[in-house]
């Protein structure tokens, strides 16, 4: 096993519960992300996904545990970890272009104005924003366009790790589809490591190399790491034809609908909570017509690292 680019070790987060005690959101959560990997994390509201995201971004401190990047412990926010927030977080007094320039200038303070602008325009064009539209203020852009600007700002900075916090949560389904395609396109060209929170199973299957599944809180944990065994490049219209698609999807639905609850609420007793790796590949077993109905199906195998 290669050394992961990002490794999260025994992360624990507790909050005061307002009655003098503490409430444990998650405990001893450990997982890793390889360089260039696209990882999605799925789980119900309140299981601590956003808290994990904020810790990875350096905007929050865990109660205990460490986050290591390339072997070094990180603390506090850094340009190495770019963030795309759900509510876009564009600065409303700057135009779309100036928002991207803001990021690029922070990353490359020694570059000339012209270089910075060229880089910003290049990444805006990569998400489909060209021409006069880049000079508009965020308030004059649609939600989808704002999120594109936000994605361009994050990618233009070449962070070692890109964190996406439900980036499409506030968008309608059609816009979401278009921007997912834009995201795949820009990601494909950069081999950026991405960690993304989502609520949308189909979105996760389309985008991710691996999906981390979280159980419900309190005492939530990353229970499984599901490999998406569908080759790239993926197209939303084509992947549904792939024999693995519904097998994986059913497994995820089953987990979120039932097992996330069954596995919830167990204290770890100090054990390291690494996710179990799940690999579902019907093309390997040669029985593409076998019923794919969740983890109980015999052709599934769970591999512990």
């Amino acid at each position, binding site marked *: 096993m290669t050394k992961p680019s990002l490794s999260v070790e025994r992360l624990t987060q507790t909050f005061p519960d307002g009655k003098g005690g503490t409430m444990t959101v998650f405990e001893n959560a450990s997982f890793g992300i390889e360089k260039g990997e696209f990882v999605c994390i799925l789980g119900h509201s309140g299981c601590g996904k956003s808290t994990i995201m904020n810790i990875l*971004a350096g905007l929050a401190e865990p109660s205990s545990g460490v986050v290591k990047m390339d072997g070094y412990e990180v603390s506090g*926010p850094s340009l190495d970890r770019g*963030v795309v927030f759900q509510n876009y977080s564009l*600065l*409303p*007094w700057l135009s779309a272009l100036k928002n991207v320039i803001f990021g690029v200038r922070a990353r490359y303070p020694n570059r000339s104005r012209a270089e910075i602008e060229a880089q910003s325009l290049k990444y805006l064009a990569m998400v489909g924003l060209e021409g006069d539209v880049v000079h508009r203020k965020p308030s004059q852009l649609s939600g989808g366009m704002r999120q594109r600007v936000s994605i361009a700002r994050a990618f233009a900075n070449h962070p070692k790790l890109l964190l996406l916090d439900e980036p499409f949560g506030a968008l309608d389904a059609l816009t979401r589809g278009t921007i997912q395609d834009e995201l795949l396109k820009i990601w494909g060209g950069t081999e950026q490591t991405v960690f993304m929170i989502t609520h949308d199973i189909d979105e996760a299957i389309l985008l991710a190399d691996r999906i981390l599944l979280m159980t419900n809180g309190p005492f939530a944990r990353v229970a499984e790491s599901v490999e998406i065994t569908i080759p790239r490049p993926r197209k939303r219209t084509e992947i549904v034809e792939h024999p693995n698609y519904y097998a994986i999807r059913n497994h995820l639905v089953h987990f979120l609908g039932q097992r996330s609850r069954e596995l919830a609420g167990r204290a770890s007793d100090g054990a390291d909570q690494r996710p179990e790796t799940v690999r579902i590949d019907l093309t390997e077993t040669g029985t593409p017509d076998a019923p794919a109905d969740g983890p109980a199906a015999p052709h599934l195998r769970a591999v512990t690292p």
Partner: protein
Amino acid sequence: MGKLTLNQRAALLSLVLLAVGLLIWEAAIPAQKAAAELTEYERLTGGGAPKAGVPPPSQVLVKAWEQLSNPFYDAGPNDKGIGIQIGYSIYRVLSGYLLAALVAIPLGFLIGMSPVAYRALNPFIQVLRPISPLAWMPLALFIIQDSEASAIFVIFICSIWPMLINTAFGVAGVRQDWVNVARTHELGPLRTAFTVILPAAAPTIITGMRISIGIAWLVIVAAEMLVGGTGIGYYVWNEWNNLDLTSVIFSILMIGVVGMLLDSAFAWLQRAVAYAE
């Protein structure tokens, strides 16, 4: 009649109101009787002598024309052009105001960013803020020993509060998301203050500055009536002592016009820094 826009109709109505108002004013001034029409008793009691009265608008207009065509003449301490007087007032207002801005905006930043500073300074602000600026005048005159500087101090003390409170409020209210953007881009405290917090809080800060300049212009008239010498406030009081009501009315109008210009400068500034979320 063609269709007029809303603005054109409003302007027309304004002009009609002005004309009607001036006509009523002009008509309401009682004419002085000619000496021949007076009774002997009235002549004996001095009724024939010219009486001081509220002047009609026509006289005010003549006065305005005379003053505005030569605003900067200087014929000694008690006879200076309206331009010079207003210039002194604006100079005092701006000096006091800029000093107040230099103190209030950085201090407001500090208070807005630090809850401890906010709580520690709040009682002082709450006690000092409601004090009438003129109440400081005796103390200022005694300590500073200079009427000119005392007037500037009074402007300083009255314009500091709205700026201080609005800056603190604006800075404290900057959305956490924008601060997080600054943090994830590794901006230092100074760059965060100038590139994120200042533009985010600017509309609130400018609103405070606009309130302050309005108050400063109100207070300078009263302050100059007290300290005397020069300035539009002194001019009003001096013309009252001269019983020249035409000049009094004219200078009252000028105070209004200058106040409006100062306010519209800040209104323009406010539009320039405004942003829509």
